[in-house]
């Protein structure tokens, strides 16, 4: 695991020393501490920690206000609350404020160390997925098309999707579920869909139903192969697929999701095809 730089936020010198001692003894780098909102902002901007331990009761502020201030500076910084107060209501409030874990004082060394490791492992795993998935899905589409139709494709562009776009006619959606959830979406014109299905069947499709089944299965194979490759690269991802849903209609608009997705436009011998994939960092497991 890469170096983890930690800032300790607490208004008690004893608690700071106690937590610092545990972290020092377990190979973590304590880069600073703070006891007020202003100190928190200053030390986070200055030291750029990967993780902050956060007391809940602080003079003139509280742990949640400080957490929000930290995430305004950098939303990727993990916050673990260490507080003597712990009840359902405050834990729920902490979750809403994107706290990664909640520990009650007095804490013991093993509990803190394992919690930090789990919080950081989840972050690293997401980063791994983020780095890998675009290439893996593009490759799976290329391979799938090649195996099923003996043709090649070229990708002409790739971009992050942050606004809605109009469907070319037919959209296949496959939900992906595992350590992180997401979706794969394939969008193409009915003509392109028909050309692909005709090539797979080596004859004209008999009905719209057959056409949709073919494209559903085509997309399912691509998503299945891509997720298998990702799962092989890192078992902890545990990605599984929901069955495909196939939508078609007049001037259908596909909304941009609330999380980042990437689109790639593939030029095939059958026409243009849009591949869009993304995973939500979102609701990480609560620890």
């Amino acid at each position, binding site marked *: 695991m890469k170096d983890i730089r930690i800032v300790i936020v607490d208004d008690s010198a004893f608690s700071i020393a106690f937590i610092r001692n545990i972290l020092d003894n377990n190979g973590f780098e304590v880069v600073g501490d703070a006891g007020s909102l202003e100190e928190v902002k200053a030390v986070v901007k200055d030291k750029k920690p990967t993780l902050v331990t956060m007391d809940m009761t602080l003079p003139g502020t509280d742990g949640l206000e400080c957490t929000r201030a930290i995430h305004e500076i950098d939303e990727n910084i993990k916050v673990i609350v260490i507080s003597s107060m712990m009840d359902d209501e405050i834990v729920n409030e902490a979750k809403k404020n994107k706290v990664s874990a909640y520990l009650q004082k007095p804490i013991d060394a093993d509990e803190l160390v394992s919690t930090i490791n789990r919080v950081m492992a989840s972050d690293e795993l997401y980063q791994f997925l983020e780095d890998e998935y675009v290439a893996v899905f593009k490759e799976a589409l290329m391979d799938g098309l090649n195996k099923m139709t003996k043709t090649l494709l070229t990708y002409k562009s790739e971009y992050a999707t942050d606004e809605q776009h109009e469907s070319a006619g037919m959209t296949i959606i496959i*939900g*992906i579920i595992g350590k992180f*959830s997401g979706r794969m979406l394939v969008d193409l014109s009915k003509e392109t869909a028909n050309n692909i299905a005709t090539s797979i069947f080596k004859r004209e499709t008999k009905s719209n139903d057959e056409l949709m089944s073919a494209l559903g299965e085509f997309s399912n194979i691509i998503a299945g192969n891509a997720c298998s490759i990702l799962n092989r690269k890192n078992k902890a991802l545990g990605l599984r697929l929901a*069955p495909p849903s196939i939508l078609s*209609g007049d001037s*259908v608009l596909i909304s941009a999701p*609330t999380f980042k997705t990437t689109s790639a436009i593939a030029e095939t011998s059958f026409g243009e095809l849009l591949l869009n994939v993304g995973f939500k960092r979102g609701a990480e497991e609560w620890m």
Partner: protein
Amino acid sequence: MDVKHINPFIESFTNVMPELGFSSAQIGNLISKDKEVMSSGVVVIVGIVGALRGNVAYSIDIESAKQIASTMMCDSVDEFDDNAMSAISELTNMLTAHAATAFSNIGIIIDISTPTMLQGENVSIKMSSDQVLCVQLLADDIPIEINISFEN
């Protein structure tokens, strides 16, 4: 498809809607449809895996979607803009997540994917199983359709 798999969605709807500011949450008709579902307005697809595998397609006409977003945001929504879309997307996410919890209470463990939202007229939705159960629900008399399809 087992009709008892509808109950968690109904339970979720009757629990979640009042929390979002709706004063009534009523259950309308239960209709069995074949694979293809027609819809106009907003469609949100959420995938399901685990002890059950399938999809849920929420279908709401645009006017109703705007009214729902208005209630959720405590603000009148004239255009189905990004904020309104985000509210509807979050609503379907909450409804499916609460249904998943209700399923787990009867020993059926499922996980849900992120929602995908589309809008259009005369949208045909082909779902995974041969039978789709459609529950018509009303939140303060605003109609929402939940189409549920599980593989056998």
